[in-house]
């Protein structure tokens, strides 16, 4: 009987010791002051004075300027639709005679995330650039920038508004 008791006790104690998460007893060994790892104060930088682009008022950034016409795209799409032909014809005409560099800005609606939306905006800008180049505008005087969903011209939650934000704006670099 004593032997059984001993075996039972040993097995149980082994089982219990395997399950527990007992903390080591370190009474009195941690009485120190330590706030150093929290780190010092961080900076706060104001980047005003630049803005994106080459200056001018904010309103100018949200639609084409210098005689160019914005080009609009379908949801998730980066091909130029036939109904944008008139706008593209205008852009070819203005672009061909431009003496300054042309900045082609790709934009998206708000229904994308992170990097993918910026790449989508860039594909739209490149589609416009390729179309202009195919019609005689020099590639070397065009520069592409994607603004992703960062520069909406419209913030209402409506389909019309989203349509206006999926666009490429063109302007001269000044």
């Amino acid at each position, binding site marked *: 009987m004593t032997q059984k008791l001993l075996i039972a006790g040993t097995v149980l104690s082994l089982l219990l010791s395997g399950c527990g998460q007992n903390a080591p007893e370190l009474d009195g060994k941690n009485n120190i002051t330590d706030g150093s790892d929290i780190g010092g104060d961080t900076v706060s930088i104001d980047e005003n004075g630049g803005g*994106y682009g080459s200056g001018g008022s904010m309103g100018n950034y949200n639609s084409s300027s210098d005689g160019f016409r914005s080009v609009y795209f379908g949801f998730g799409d980066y091909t130029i639709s036939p109904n944008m032909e008139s706008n593209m014809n205008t852009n070819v005409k203005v672009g061909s005679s431009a003496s300054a560099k042309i900045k082609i800005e790709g934009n998206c609606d708000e*229904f994308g995330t992170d990097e993918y939306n910026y790449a989508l905006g860039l594909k739209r800008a490149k589609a416009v650039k390729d179309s202009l180049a195919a019609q005689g505008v020099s590639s070397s005087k065009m520069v592409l920038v994607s603004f992703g969903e*960062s520069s909406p011209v419209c913030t209402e939650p409506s389909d019309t508004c989203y349509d206006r934000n999926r666009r490429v704006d063109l302007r001269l670099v000044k």
Partner: protein
Amino acid sequence: MQYLFVVLLAMNLFTSTLFAVDARLKIEKDVEQRVRIALVDGSTDQSSKVFNIFLSDLKISGHFLADTVHHQGDVSSNMLPPTLKSQEYVLRYSLNQQSGTELNVRLLKSSDGTQLFKKSYSIPTTDKMPFLIHKAISDINDMMQYPDISWITRYVVYAVYSAPGLSEIRLADYTFNYKKTIIRGGLNLFPKWADKDQRSLYYTSYKGTVPALYKLNIYNGSKEEIVSSDGMLVCSDVNSNGTKLLLTMAPEGQADIYEYNLGSRSKTRVTDFKGIDVNGKYVDDENSIVFISNRLGYANVFKKSIHSPATSQVVYHGRNNNACDAHGGKIVYSSRESNNAFGGNTFNLYLTSSGSSDTRPLTTTGTNQFPRFSSDGSTVLFLKQSGRSSSIGYINLTSQQSLLFPFNDRKIQSIDW
């Protein structure tokens, strides 16, 4: 014979707990495996905010089962009220913010009142108070010899849109009780930590004609331009020793992934596809990457060796898997599971690995995006939107504990921690 029966019963219970549970499907870590702990507040000005930060830290650790009652009592007392005898440990604390912030913590064993841990923390400011609590809980966790949770002491950095064409880059603690804007003015996006110590970060500035990548020391404000590119420029990942970057850039108008060597200032093109390749993340031994590409006609996760052209598909479900993160061999990605053109889409997070096809869902409802691994890969941060409310969520992949914190800020552009 009676004792033998007890032994057999105990063994049966033990083995069924250990072996019968499929760890991948376990919803919550067994309560018995977490130690019961109560908090006793000895502060002069007791605060539910402080108490809740303590609770959050204990919960997300996955190692403690915290009593949610806000007990009060002297921090220096060794006496434990009978109501706390059912707990295994009692954490007494006092937090004073009359001049800077001072936190005193003591961990006592409930059974006999033995003091296991005592420490004081102080900083000269009040706004970074949450970090003192995170540090204290991380230290107690270490003292108990549990798996490391020091990620709770790290900064989260994120960019928000403040107006059309304008953004701000902010720092926060993981609970977002601490927030500070570190870059305002202009359009500055895609913040990414440059080093493990979180002393510097990369971000994309739109100040010039084309996007440029800057490195900013967040403590002294020193800043240097790393590289610029036509089209777009994003620092998607930094290798483990901080010497190489994975950039999405478009020097020829085509968004592809490049590996940028900071020492030689040279770049190697990693992907070459006429569609969209973005979001490169080092995986496995940092000789391969996972990334997002639309080469099948929709956004999905792919894997590629940095030095060879072979590319393989990683994910075989979902209509649109447009963001991912990686840590070692682990991959987390967001997957759109509805098809509404405008809003109302369900995005869920999934965990998979570079070496197997095993995939498990991490979320099941709402819009869950921007998944990011913690520095040790044990926890995933994400942004959850349900209806009009937004939250920052955390999922401890080991314990399956999850937490949501209200996110009352502007629209997030990008996030890193």
